[in-house]
């Protein structure tokens, strides 16, 4: 027997989770299968909608940073996923996201982008940001101390501070590098830092005294404060209880504390993953990870069932509607070999040049065609075949598996995933409900 649901979502990233939540919110029975655990821990945890407009010229210069991402959406090329779903759907989707994450995220009070300093000392325009980064915004005029740690080389306080000043922020930034109390090893994992602070483990300080990790960290920083009213740390301030950790540091230091989003693996990404997966559980979505979809059966223009692999055993899953949210080239939702570019599960059409030397630009930071590789959706986000018809009546795509946008250059990754996931989930639920009503009608007359 196949395992049966109304909607089956394939992929456990932000697009897949949003699609599943959106469909469940409409009353559908939803299951989400993901090959591996969510890779949201590779994400910054920031929710970008649109930071830069792609350029039409060959030199690749883009326009931005944009003040209002929503106002800029109509200027995007027609093939962009935002144009497919429309600006109103983008707004609805963000409101849906706001409802899921509650007060853990800020930024909904305005259409304008917030400017968040990153670990490299650059400024990222983003629509929503974690509460833990709120005191760090670049538009805030208060001077800031950036604290890095000797054992965490991916954030260099003095360097980030110098970059921020070079970028012209309206405040003075200063950086220091300290040793993190309680960390022994040079390459301790970010989860180790977070665990020490979450549990407030007892650590030895430089003076040999034994104290809680939070207090020891605050004491180490205190000596370096020179009147700054806010202190930024790399984003390792707790995993389970970041608000509590931050509050303890703020109470000790008497200034605001903020986190600077980091590269992968990222705790803000992990915390977002936890929020989304908790919401999936509350919504009654069945989630299974570790199970790749390896095959499918077609029935008259529809996907009848997909086959999921569990260490060699093949498990059939059947749903009325399917959502493909497997990611792009990095997530392996789009793959390439030496001949062509493919969507590996359903072999949906992915347009690309026949000569693979035309897939990229000679200029490393130029406009790379590969960045826009992906399936081409119709108005309901169904992937289209080479002649423009829906590949399957009951398959929709969301997130980076869609082509037509360059999320890295535009800073639109999370926004496109949320918008298309939301719309794909809504459509899938509506069709599944239609199908259920139709079946009931057939039964009623008897």
């Amino acid at each position, binding site marked *: 027997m196949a*395992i049966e649901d109304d909607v089956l979502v394939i992929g456990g990233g932000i697009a897949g989770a949003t699609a599943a939540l959106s469909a469940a919110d409409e009353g559908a029975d939803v299951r989400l299968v993901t090959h591996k655990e969510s890779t949201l821990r*590779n994400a910054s945890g920031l929710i970008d909608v649109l930071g830069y407009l792609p350029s039409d010229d060959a030199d690749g210069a883009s326009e931005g940073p944009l003040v209002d991402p929503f106002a800029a959406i109509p200027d995007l090329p027609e093939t962009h996923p935002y144009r497919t779903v429309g600006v109103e759907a983008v707004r609805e989707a963000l409101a849906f996201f706001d409802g899921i994450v509650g007060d853990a995220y800020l930024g909904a009070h305005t259409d304008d982008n917030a400017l968040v300093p990153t670990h490299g000392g650059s400024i990222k325009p983003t629509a929503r940001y974690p509460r833990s980064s709120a005191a760090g915004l670049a538009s805030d005029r208060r001077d800031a101390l950036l604290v890095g740690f000797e054992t965490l080389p991916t954030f260099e306080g003095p360097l980030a501070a110098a970059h921020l000043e070079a970028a012209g922020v309206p405040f003075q930034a200063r950086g220091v590098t300290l040793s993190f109390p309680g960390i022994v*090893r040079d390459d301790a*994992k970010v989860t*180790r830092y977070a665990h020490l602070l979450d549990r407030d483990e007892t650590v030895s300080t430089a003076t040999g005294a034994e104290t809680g990790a939070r207090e020891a960290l605050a004491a180490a920083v205190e000596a370096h404060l020179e009147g700054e009213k806010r202190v930024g740390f790399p984003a390792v301030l707790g995993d389970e209880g970041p608000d509590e950790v931050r509050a303890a540091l703020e109470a000790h230091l008497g200034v605001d504390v903020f986190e600077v989003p980091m590269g*992968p*693996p990222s705790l803000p990404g992990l915390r977002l993953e936890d929020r989304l997966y908790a919401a999936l559980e509350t919504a009654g979505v069945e989630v299974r990870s570790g199970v790749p979809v390896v095959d499918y059966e077609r029935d008259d223009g529809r996907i009848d069932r997909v086959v*999921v692999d569990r260490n*060699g055993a093949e498990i059939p899953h059947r749903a009325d509607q399917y959502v493909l949210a497997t990611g792009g080239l990095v997530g*392996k939702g789009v793959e390439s070999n030496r001949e062509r570019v493919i969507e590996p599960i359903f072999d949906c059409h992915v347009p690309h040049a026949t000569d693979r030397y035309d897939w990229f630009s000679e200029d490393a930071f130029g406009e790379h065609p590969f960045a826009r590789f992906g399936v081409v959706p119709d108005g309901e986000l169904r992937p289209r075949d080479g002649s423009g018809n829906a590949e399957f009546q009951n398959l929709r795509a969301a997130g980076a598996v869609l082509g037509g946008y360059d999320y890295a250059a535009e800073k639109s990754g999370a926004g496109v995933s949320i918008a298309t996931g939301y719309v794909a989930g809504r459509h899938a639920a509506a069709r599944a409900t239609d199908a259920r009503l139709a079946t009931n009608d057939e039964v009623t007359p008897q």
Partner: protein
Amino acid sequence: MSDADRPIDERGIDAGDETELERAGDVETAGPDDDFDPVQVFPESEDMDLRPGADDCYKCSTCDTSCPVAEVDDEFPGPKFQGPEQWRLKRQEDHDIDETVMKCSNCMRCDGACPSDVPLSQMHNTARGEYVQKGMSKLSVEYWRNRTLANYRRLAPLAAMFPRTSNFVMGLGPVRWLGEKLFGITSEREFPEFATETFRAWWAKRGGAETSRQRAKEARAERGEDGAEKRIAYFHGCYANYNTPEVAKALVRVYEHFGYEVMVPEQRCSGTPMFANGMLEDARRAAETNVDELATAIEEGADVVASCSSCSMSLRQEYPELFDLEGVDDVAANTWDAVEYLQVHEDLTGELEGASVEGVAGMEDFAYHAPCHARNQGLAGQTREVLAPIDGVEVHDVGDSCSGISGTYGWKEEHYDTSMKIGEEMFEHMEAADAEAGLTECPTCSMQMGHGTGYEITHTLEVLEAALVGAGSDGGGARPDR
């Protein structure tokens, strides 16, 4: 782009036209239409080539954030180092396996986390095997302690012969103290009790396969099923045989209820504790027997099911990764978790609709923990979903924390504290859940859950037995045994 600009690998090599490299044996001859064939940079490893796995690692460190040991102990360099990085270092001849590999608990979470399919646990298993082979003295207490823990099944028959004496002696304070001082086995834990009758003894007394065939036939007639016989081969593992035969009996009764004839082939330890202790030769010997017996059962039309998630993990993943045995892939592809098998092959939900365990003591509310080895097989969430239709039982999932015991790991004096630190989150979530009892599929997770909370721990199959067959007279079992 002109051909002159293209990298050399694409120009194609005329078939039969050997190059210098090929004559040296370093590359194979590739015709113009053949798949790209990379030049060998590293010398071939003798038994298995892990290079493709090492190459697939793009250093995102996702595995490191999923590692429960690295989170509580920063002296452990994490799965990325233990796997691909150490593998590369090993290409240098003067480099030995780092001793920290023994801090890895073999929970295998890194496998489930890696977005690039790097076979991390396979790398850890081979590294650990090599470390024990070359780096650990065969005269050390640690070696013999590990070997004893890994080969618990060898001692179990003795204890099972005199279960009451064994339980008494092992429970004595001075014995546990000596165990720690002389042998490095923590005195903090109580040894699991041996059952007064092993599952296999019960099975034989009950009439073995013949009785099961008969009962399955009757059940099929009662269910109105005609046609094909249904048959499974049960891999019970050591723990369900010697310590918790009630779990094994529950499996037999549930499967017979659905009309399956149960076969109980000869079997040895699945090998899980041996992998975790780097005793690969011991594991291989056990695997030879298991694969041989189970492959025969599969030929006779049975699928293999296991009630322990580490046993099924071992048969499905570690065997094919580590041992080149005849039939090993066949066994892996036809092995199932016992509940998963019913979910896919029977209308389990339909059958459980309206079933009830109301009135069965201790079955009201469970704090459920999904073992890491079940999680890695895509089974997290299955128990909650399957038991949901049953009246009278509530399953509260305590989340994705690791129990921390990881088989023999938490039994070692030097790992006990780490094991309990890892388990802390699970204990807290269990205590916060609206339940006074625990539920899981893994025997050692179950020990840790009981150790940390004092709860009684039940196996999912026991709940299914109570719902489908009813709680009976023979000690929590179902039908009176003929």
